């Protein structure tokens, strides 16, 4: 009998070792029974930062002071939103406790708040996850206490009616209940949380945008973002790592509606602690699902330098709604793992018939009037250019430059023609912002180039130039500009 029990324990431990090394707990297996020693105030961090790992070897009383603030902040360039927040930003402050800890939770609602708020922590075992004990009027504070008996990564959120609206306005964050034995050490830990926003105006429409209930009910967000704004994790906000380091991402999804297909372009997750739990550790994962109101822990070693893009691989959310963040990895190249581009040559299929529109083989007769040029140009723009430069020419900050009201465009029409003919690569400055990406040569004939550029120049407060096919032909004859050519159109 005793023997059988022992084997069961060993078996359980072996299984657990594949997970979060729960065996180190030894005999102390019941977190609810762990003895509380001492008291401390939890250090809370704003995303993307994570409080340091817990080095304590015993359970303690942890005091969490979390303040609710309703604040107007930036959602995207020129777009503001009244966020309801835990701690002053979206997502809410990261809370880190240890399995067995007794958490004394103080929820403070700032006097300037319009709404009452409460908190439902998925790490809590109890009615409403704490919500029923924490409804807090503006200018008041409520206190409740819970024992962290289940290790894992958990979402917390506001659960005051109407719940969907409180979550849609940004009221979510993560709480990590570290296993008593801790998590394996890594070099970097970051906090990334996805959430979507439903605004009265369409994506990019400037001004203070109110919440749109109909869009929320229909699950049609205008914005899907990481860490509360379109470019929170871009440019200076990009996450950083060095070659050879192991990065651990605590990934949450506040929703309120969408499930995230979380992916890092150019990386493979060495380990995914599935849904933030401790039982299932999966290896070599490309894309991991993060449920709305759920979380995941992903770890990977960065082997080569470069910029790695985090996306929701439901990909229109990344390129049209903002679900795009960056990890900048610095360090020496490693050609054994990734060579970089080795060659870029003309590809001529057998027979040599390249399908390309040129002035020698016009598909349609040239545009006779400016109006006709505009109509055709609009069609080409929608089909070819809008995918990157966006429907209203607004581009995507830090990724694709705008062609609306663009100083780069209006300053030099020959340069613009050359960019469409020969492509454009490398750093450029548009309206004061730096861009460093690649526009391919588009293989269009002179007539089409003239039409689309005339359309762009005549739209969105641009200079209003009419570009003629003759002008395009002249630029084509002059050949690619130095250091801007990609691809070979001729």
């Amino acid at each position, binding site marked *: 009998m005793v023997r059988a029990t022992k084997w069961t324990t060993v078996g359980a431990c072996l299984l657990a070792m594949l997970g979060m090394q729960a065996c180190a707990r030894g005999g102390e297996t019941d977190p609810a029974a762990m003895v509380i020693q001492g008291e401390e105030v939890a250090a809370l961090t704003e995303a993307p930062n994570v409080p340091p790992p817990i080095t304590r070897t015993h359970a303690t009383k942890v005091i969490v002071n979390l303040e609710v603030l*309703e*604040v*107007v902040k930036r959602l995207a360039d020129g777009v503001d939103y*009244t966020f309801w927040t835990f701690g002053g930003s979206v997502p809410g402050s990261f809370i880190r406790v240890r399995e067995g800890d007794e958490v004394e939770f103080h929820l403070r609602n700032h*006097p*300037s*708040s*319009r*709404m*009452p708020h*409460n908190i*439902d922590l998925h790490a809590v075992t109890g009615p*409403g996850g704490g*919500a*029923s004990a924490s*409804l*807090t*009027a*503006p*200018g*008041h504070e409520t206190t409740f206490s819970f024992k962290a008996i289940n290790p894992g990564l958990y979402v917390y959120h506001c*659960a*005051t*009616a*109407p*719940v969907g*609206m409180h979550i849609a*306005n940004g009221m979510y964050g993560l709480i990590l209940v570290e296993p008593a034995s801790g998590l394996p050490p890594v070099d970097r830990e970051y906090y990334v949380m996805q959430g979507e926003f439903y605004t*009265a105006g369409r994506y990019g429409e400037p001004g203070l945008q*109110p*919440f749109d*209930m*109909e869009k929320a*009910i229909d699950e049609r967000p205008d914005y899907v973002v990481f860490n509360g704004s379109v470019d929170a994790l871009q440019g200076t906000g990009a996450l950083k790592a060095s070659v050879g380091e192991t990065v651990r991402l605590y990934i949450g999804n506040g929703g309120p509606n969408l499930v995230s297909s979380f992916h890092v372009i150019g990386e493979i997750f060495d380990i995914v602690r599935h849904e933030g739990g401790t039982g299932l550790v999966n290896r070599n994962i490309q894309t991991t699902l993060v449920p709305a109101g759920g979380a995941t822990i992903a770890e990977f070693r960065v082997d080569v330098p470069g910029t790695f893009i985090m996306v929701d691989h439901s990909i229109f959310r990344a390129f049209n709604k903002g679900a795009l963040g960056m990890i900048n990895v610095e360090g020496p190249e490693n050609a054994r793992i990734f060579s970089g581009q080795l060659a870029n040559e003309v590809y001529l299929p057998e027979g040599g018939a390249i399908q390309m529109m040129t002035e020698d083989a016009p598909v349609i007769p040239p545009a006779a009037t400016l109006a006709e040029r505009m109509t055709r140009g609009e069609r080409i723009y929608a089909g070819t250019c809008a995918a990157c430069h966006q429907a209203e020419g607004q581009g995507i900050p830090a990724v694709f430059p705008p062609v609306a009201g663009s100083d780069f465009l209006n300053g030099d029409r020959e340069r613009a023609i050359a960019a469409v003919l020969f492509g454009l690569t490398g750093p450029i400055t548009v309206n004061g912002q730096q861009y460093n990406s690649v526009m391919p040569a588009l293989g269009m004939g002179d007539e089409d180039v003239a039409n689309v550029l005339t359309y762009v120049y005549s739209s969105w407060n641009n200079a209003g130039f009419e570009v003629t096919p003759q002008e395009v032909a002249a630029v084509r004859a002059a050949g690619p500009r130095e250091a801007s050519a990609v691809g070979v159109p001729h």
Partner: protein
Amino acid sequence: MTHLLRGAIVPALVAALAVAQVLSMSMPDTSSMVTVPAGSYRPLYRLPTGVVDRRDTPRREVHAFAMDVHPVTNGEFLAFVRDHPEWRRSQAKKLFVDRAYLSHWRGDLDPGPLAPLDSPVVYVSWFAARAYLKAQGKDLPTVDQWEYVAAADETVRDASRDPAFLARLRSWYGRTLPQPVPPAGSGLRNLYGIADLHGLVWEWTLDFNSALVTGESRGDGSIDAGLYCGSGAAAAADFDNYPAFMRFAFRSSLEARYSVGSLGFRGVRNLSGAGQ
């Protein structure tokens, strides 16, 4: 000594106030009230009637009553605390007010720049509001009375299912309240001629903490239980009326001694025999 000094410095002011007080005490101010005819409204939370379609919840009857056109202002409340020292900030019983009571005033009898005289008074407890109204022969509106009048927009008596009206309210609830609070009368004026039920501050109701006990047996043991997540929505009659959800959530977060920076009040007087 102090008393003498004070009296010597501001005798004219005291005299003027005395006149004002006599006026307000002797004749309750009805000119600023509007008579609301009897009618009915559809409450957000249904009674357990066994009705299958929740949107067909029975309407609740409301008798005729008179309601203040504006929420009570700092100036009006100042006159009250002059006359009732026991409700001054420094003297109010802690049983009836919390620490935030009139905390935006500069002094006991000096509202100061954060509390313009013509703006609604906020940071007042339910007890203080009732004491003010009692002195005028009025009381707080019930949730039924308040919601019934607040269902009106500028042109119709019941706009509670009008998406455009609800969208306006959501937009208002979603914004932070400017500081100092804008003057009374700057919010929406509805077809009864009653202003600011929407668009300015929250308002106390007489039975703010009993809304969910009436008829909702599950909630009898715990007043707040009906408002969380699924259970809150399950009992609701109208899932789309987010503004009503927010008002009920707000009321549920209160206790009678609380003072909140966005919460004011107004009075009603029941009309004797009306609708009986």
